[in-house]
């Protein structure tokens, strides 16, 4: 944990259009755990608009200290290691926003989210997006985009997946997809009527509401 505690705060600060989508899924006064709470944007949004009982866990100590100084209830912790200490169904919602791809064991982390929360909300960048595919297909290089600004050698994002991959993992873990949303490059929701392959191609980010 100590060596991982570098200066990279949670993972993708470039564009956080997913936060509003996540917030919309959470009813007022819920008990919420935000795993990978970063600079506390989501917790602050939820406290201001939904009066939630919000807690955060963040890998970067700098991020944690800033959150606590702003009055948020946040602890330093590692999603890969520290979720086991939380009791079953201790929260109404457990949120993992733009962090899944940076965990060492995404399957285990997702399993823990479904255990701790009555619902889990997971948002992640879709590696099946056409820009990513194009970069690999035409340039033959790992994609570096506005959303995924890191080079392959310095990225904290070690476990990318596509929307289809994620749906498969949910099946494997016995999770029910209660709601799914894909956002295009402009942060606009992609129509519900569109088929999965369309989401997987044009969705730049995905937000899933799950339960088990």
């Amino acid at each position, binding site marked *: 944990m100590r060596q991982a505690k570098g200066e990279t705060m949670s993972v993708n600060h470039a564009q956080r259009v997913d936060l509003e989508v996540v917030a919309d899924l959470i009813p007022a006064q819920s008990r919420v755990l935000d795993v990978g709470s970063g600079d506390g944007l989501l917790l602050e949004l939820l406290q201001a608009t939904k009066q939630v009982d919000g807690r955060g866990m963040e890998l970067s*100590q700098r991020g*944690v200290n800033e*959150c*606590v*100084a702003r*009055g*948020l209830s*946040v602890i330093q*912790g590692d999603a890969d290691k520290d979720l086991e*200490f939380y009791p079953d169904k201790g929260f109404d919602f457990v949120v993992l926003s733009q962090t899944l791809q940076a965990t060492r064991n995404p399957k285990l982390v997702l399993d823990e989210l479904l255990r701790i929360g009555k619902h889990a909300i997971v948002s992640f960048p879709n590696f099946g997006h056409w820009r990513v595919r194009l970069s690999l297909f035409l340039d033959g290089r790992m994609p570096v985009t506005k959303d995924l600004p890191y080079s392959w050698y310095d990225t904290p994002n070690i476990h990318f997946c596509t929307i289809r991959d994620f749906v498969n993992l949910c099946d494997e873990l016995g999770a029910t997809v209660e709601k799914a949303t894909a956002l295009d490059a402009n942060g606009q929701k992609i129509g519900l009527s569109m088929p999965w392959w369309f989401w997987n191609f044009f969705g730049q980010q995905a937000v899933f509401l799950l339960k088990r």
Partner: protein
Amino acid sequence: MVALRAKRTNNEADEPSSPVLRFGADKPLKLDAGTLLSPFQIAYKTYGTLNEARSNAILVCHALTGDQHVASTNPVTGKPGWWEVLIGPGRIIDTSRFFVICSNVIGGCLGSTGPASTNPATGKPYGLDLPIITIRDMVRAQLMLVDHFGIEKLFSVLGGSMGGMQVLQWASSYPERVFSALPIATGARHSSQNIAFHEVGRQAVMADPDWHGGKYFEHGKRPEKGLAVARMAAHITYLSEAALHRKFGRNLQDREALTFGFDADFQIESYLRHQGMTFVDRFDANSYLYMTRAMDYFDLAADHGGRLADAFAGNKTRFCLVSFTSDWLFPTEESRSVVHALNAAGASVSFVEIETDRGHDAFLLDEPELFAAINGFIASAARARGLSE
């Protein structure tokens, strides 16, 4: 000179220069040792004003060699209060807004009943006739003080090191009386290494011939050498290797070359000797034995069948824990295990680890990140408690 000093400290033990609350035979203090302490007294200081709703009270718990003079000049040393950097008018813990209470712990030597106090049964100082005092005993006594003020629920309880142990004990024993809790640089138990250092200190005191089996006042003596050595050893544990090296390195003390003798050639030796010497002027040796023992005995999980989370079951208190990267007396892992237990209990907890090379003592120093964390935590707790700005 020795006798004079002995007399003065003894007086501060019985008739302190701060307010005292005395409990007679009708209100004994129940001790974990299985006996009752009666009569007994608590010496305390308060700062600020208790509001009408009695909802703005903050209890500060002091560390091993601290006292009730947290935010005003210490009558024994003439130095500023030990946490004046944090507490006072306009400070982070603003005494124009909060009512701050700090009491000398039971077993202490600045006015609360301790080994230097006069035993009413004999007319002589208790010495080792005082039963062993535990952290929980200290907290039980503090509760009686808080009841005396008619405070139903403390807005916050905070403290570092042994003070942090009291904070954890408060939140565990009386969760409904504590709205928020700030345990700093502490742990839910004393580690084997910490007990080891304390034992070295106690043996140093007891090896001093002036200790007289704890009855030194009756001989007009004080075990100053032993207590000074105890303090020197302990003081090293409050710092860090990096801080010692930064401050002293291998620098020589007022000399150009090594003297090939056992004088204090090095600055660090001179510094430690000074720390030891000034400590014996303000602290009672037997009290040091009792305080260190209280910390050694502290094990919150053991009181709950070995499961720390059970110490906080159903707890509604808001917690904020703070540790320091270079603290090897209470390393971050000690705080983290408390955090995990609080998580398991579903409690509300924040946890900040602060990067510093100043070791355990960092909690007493001007650490901007510590102050920012305390400030944020207190401000949000005050909003939740409905306290006005």
